[in-house]
């Protein structure tokens, strides 16, 4: 068993803010303001082993960024315990910072007007690396992340994909044991996203860097992360291997039937099978596989149609995740 490098127990974070009292005077609002408290994270517990690739996902306002910020020492928890690499992030923030990397997809840490190599040099100094170490590591990262063609260009002239690669590379200058990525693929095109995911898998394998990622992109989760933690309304609603995510929640399969002869009247279907779409030349059916196997269902379906071609597929992970979000939001 690999060592545990992140351990979170009963973690809670409340934010308090002043609310203007309706009908109250200006001075009353200043002297005796109404204080409102919202719970961004509520009593969550989980642990992460060394070298894992974890997706920490949830809808907007679910508490994922707040959790990442508590794990990195940026935010102070209201209650609960956090241990990252054996350190308490809020009390030993600087010590921890030497061992972790952070990338916030919507915020750049690079010098916009200077070449990328200057940012490498600067962050190398910040992480207390020697001149030789900075030079060697910069070379290594430029090669690994394929940055050589634009390393001397001012950062502001880079494309978003190039910039994100550069952001991640700089955050790895000090060989962190864990890298926290907050929506790293936001705004990237498909090619750039794919390249970035491959790079992250590569550093995870070659440098044993643990990856802790938040994203709204299902492909990031599917292709990059072995484990998924879903958070909603500040509480963890699922924590399981990504591969199980689909299996555990899919109680339906879809069947596309391409018809040999056009249909005008659609026959009633046996129990557990429903129409999703009806078209003269193609129907899509949903099959409840909780009470029947897909082969049994197909045997029941085929006599009803004159089939030209057939396609059976599972629901997409995106739909599964959406269903989980909706179910946990409505309190099902």
């Amino acid at each position: 068993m690999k060592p545990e490098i992140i351990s979170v127990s009963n973690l809670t974070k409340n934010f308090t803010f002043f609310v203007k009292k309706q009908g109250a005077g200006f001075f009353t609002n200043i002297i005796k303001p109404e204080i409102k408290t919202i719970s961004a994270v509520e009593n969550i517990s989980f642990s992460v082993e060394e070298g894992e690739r974890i997706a920490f996902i949830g809808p907007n306002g679910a508490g994922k960024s707040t959790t990442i910020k508590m794990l990195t020492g940026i935010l102070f928890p209201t209650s609960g315990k956090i241990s990252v690499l054996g350190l308490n992030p809020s009390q030993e923030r600087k010590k921890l910072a030497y061992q972790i990397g952070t990338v916030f997809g919507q915020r750049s840490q690079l010098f916009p007007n200077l070449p990328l190599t200057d940012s490498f040099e600067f962050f190398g100094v910040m992480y207390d690396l020697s001149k030789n170490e900075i030079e060697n590591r910069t070379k290594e990262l430029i090669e690994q992340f394929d940055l050589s063609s634009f390393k001397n260009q001012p950062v502001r002239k880079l494309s978003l994909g190039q910039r994100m690669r550069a952001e991640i590379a700089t955050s790895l200058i000090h060989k962190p044991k864990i890298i926290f990525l907050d929506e790293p693929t936001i705004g990237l095109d498909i090619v750039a996203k794919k390249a970035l995911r491959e790079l992250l898998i590569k550093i995870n394998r070659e440098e044993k860097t643990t990856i802790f990622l938040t994203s709204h992109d299902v492909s990031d989760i599917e292709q990059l992360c072995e484990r998924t933690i879903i958070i909603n309304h500040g509480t963890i609603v699922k924590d399981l291997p990504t591969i199980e995510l689909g299996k555990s929640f899919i109680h339906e399969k879809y069947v596309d039937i391409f018809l040999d002869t056009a249909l005008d009247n659609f026959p009633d279907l046996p129990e557990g099978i429903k129409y999703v779409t009806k078209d003269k030349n193609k129907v899509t059916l949903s099959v409840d596989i909780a009470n029947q196997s897909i082969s049994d269902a197909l045997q029941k379906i085929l006599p009803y149609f004159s089939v030209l071609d057939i396609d059976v597929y599972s629901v997409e992970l995106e739909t599964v995740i959406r269903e989980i979000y909706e179910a946990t939001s409505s309190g099902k």
Partner: protein
Amino acid sequence: MKQLRLANSIIKMMIKDRIQYPARLIVDTFGIIARCGVLLILYRYVFRYQGGLIQGVTFQIVAWSMFLYFSFMTLRLRDLAKSIMQDIKTGTVEILLSKPIHYLNYRMWWQVGAGMYPFFVATFLGVVALFLTVGIPESMQSWFFVGTFFITFFFAGILSLLIYSAVGLLAFWIEDVKPLYWIVDKSVMILGGSYLPVALFPETMYKIAIFSPFGASQFITSTVYNTWKIDYLKLMGIQLFWIIVVGFIVVYIFNRAYKKVSVNGG
């Protein structure tokens, strides 16, 4: 040692960054020439009509005193308040807090680095221009002046950084500190002797300028007066006093602010 290496690196990067924009440097230099120049022309006439001496001070001394104020301003240490406010508003503070640095130290060095290049260029040009037009007053022609000037300059820099840090850090509570910044900045301008040299202030106003932290943050303007030799210990003492007081306030505010960090998306 690590702190010094990082500070050196920040300053180096900021100078490199500023060199990328020569136009900005020209604008900065032109700004100081325009503002300081217009005032000096005005004062030249005022002094001429008053027989060359007002309250025992010559135009030559006033010119240097005012120039030192404007030269110090090109360091743009006051922008520290705006930088901190921007960090808080945009959430950049979270990037910096995830690094192995002290946020406030980092931002202070950043500000020093950002202003250094325009400061040296504008000061060099200003010194040459004043040397050629009004000459150097006797009070500035001694090792005593040089030594005490640098100490006062150092104290003024620290005090300015602390005052504007305190203003900027309030953004953790009130987000937009611009109105407060405006009040503090204008107090520094007026009590620091930007438009009217402190030596020409009425007595009460003079006392306020001398004993307030705003005036103390600009004591470099007092170093050219003949009275500096008598007052320098008192004025430096006042600077030190405010550095300690404002320093404690800043540390207190920062520690409280850090615990209540609340950034976008968390």
